[in-house]
């Protein structure tokens, strides 16, 4: 099979631009997802069943349906209510945020529940309210536990942002498809794009491992 490097060359500026967009929307997605996810995790851990219910539904819907469908609904059903015309980048960021929030909520829940029960009891026995205990004692400790799974979630998000190409958000995969469409060839654009994703995710993996190792050294158990 011949591999026409000039296709890669031609499209490289676009791939690089697309890479920047990919990184940007993924970052935005994880950051907003973090805030939402924390909120959802806390709601989903309420002792009141009725309060838990909507959070539980949220998590199940966003984890249970394909992100593609979520993105379409958000881009064409929801965002247009606030913004016209809706910008695919905005929709993509919203979609990634809402979707990752569901996963991040579960990460937070696992992290919080992994903190020894004695910590909550000690805090309460000193007269702290539940909220104070959460804020001052549990969450600061949970943060460390959730960093590795959050790193994984970021990697997942980075790859899933490629669905933005369906909304024509000009991220990496969008340009891969554009190149494939122009030359009616798949290998050159898709292999290049895959390689760029791999570089991104590997860099992240190594960064994560580094952070984890550092955290272990100055672990304040």
């Amino acid at each position, binding site marked *: 099979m*011949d591999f026409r490097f000039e296709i890669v060359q*031609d*499209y490289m*500026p*676009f791939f690089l631009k697309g890479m920047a967009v990919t990184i940007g929307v993924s970052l935005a997605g994880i950051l907003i997802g973090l805030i939402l996810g924390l909120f959802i995790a806390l709601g989903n851990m309420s002792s009141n069943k009725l309060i838990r219910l909507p959070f539980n539904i949220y998590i199940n819907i966003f984890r249970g349906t394909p992100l593609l469908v979520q993105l*379409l609904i958000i*881009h*064409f*059903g929801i965002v*247009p209510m606030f913004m*016209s*015309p*809706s910008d*695919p980048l905005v929709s993509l960021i919203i979609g990634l945020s809402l979707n990752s929030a569901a996963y991040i909520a579960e990460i937070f829940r696992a992290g919080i529940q992994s903190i020894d029960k004695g910590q909550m009891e000690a805090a309460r026995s000193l007269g702290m309210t539940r909220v104070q205990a959460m804020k001052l004692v549990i969450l600061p400790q949970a943060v460390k536990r959730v960093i590795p799974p959050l790193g994984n979630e970021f990697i997942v998000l980075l790859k899933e942002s490629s669905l933005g*190409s*369906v*909304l*024509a958000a000009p991220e990496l995969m969008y*340009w891969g*498809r*554009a*190149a*494939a*469409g*122009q*030359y*009616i*060839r*798949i290998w050159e654009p898709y292999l290049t794009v895959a390689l760029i994703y791999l570089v991104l995710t590997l860099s992240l993996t190594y960064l994560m491992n580094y952070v984890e190792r550092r955290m272990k050294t100055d672990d304040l158990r």
Partner: protein
Amino acid sequence: SLLLSACGSGGEQQSGSEDKKVLNVGTEATFAPFEFMDKGEVSGFDVDLLNAAAEEAGYEVDIKNTGWDAMLAGLQSDQLDIGMSGVTITDERKETYDFSSPYFESVSMIVFKEGTNITKAEDLKGKKIGVQNGTTGQIAAEAIVGKNDSSISKYEAAALTFQALQSGDVEAVVTDIAVALEYVKNNPDAGVKTVSDEQFTPEYYGIVFSKGSELKAEFDEALNTLYENGTYTEIYKKWFDEEPNLDVLKEAAVQ
């Protein structure tokens, strides 16, 4: 907030009442040579034609590569005024959208690997066929072997359809002649042959508007003008290197 916005836009009054209205156009630019990304720019036959037609009708168009699904959703939610993406006119689709009068006669062509025994459309029977989902090629092939027949594989993009041919997933690809020729041009050593057949009923591409759009009449008229004044022929020759058969289009428009 009224106060604030008044302050914010203080200097520049919007005076564009005389400016041409800008129409939002969606397309899926992976269908060379009709529409594709030429290194970042949406281009192709459809793009040139629509620009000319809009000019004629007194509009400006902002053509964005929205992707297929997004184009449809955009039309249905009125975020887009026009869909222009080599969309085949069918009765089923007319229930949802309005189409301009036909602007292109799409004749299907069979592409197959050298050595496969295909000389006419009937030979497709019993063979595995690849088509691009929702295109004239699909309609043509389904006309021969039946709708949603298990011998038909529908791919999302032309590139995938041809890759499937190369890897032996399918024995024949049915697609628009222009696309087939574009593929052969881009992949000269692909080892494929092409054959066309009168039996393939021609299908027509139309510009898509949301149901009941006032634009339809204006663009129909504009297209007509382009046929008459030679602009259409010019654009056609630029992209396909041959003379268009205008009579066919006019005839089809009457139906």
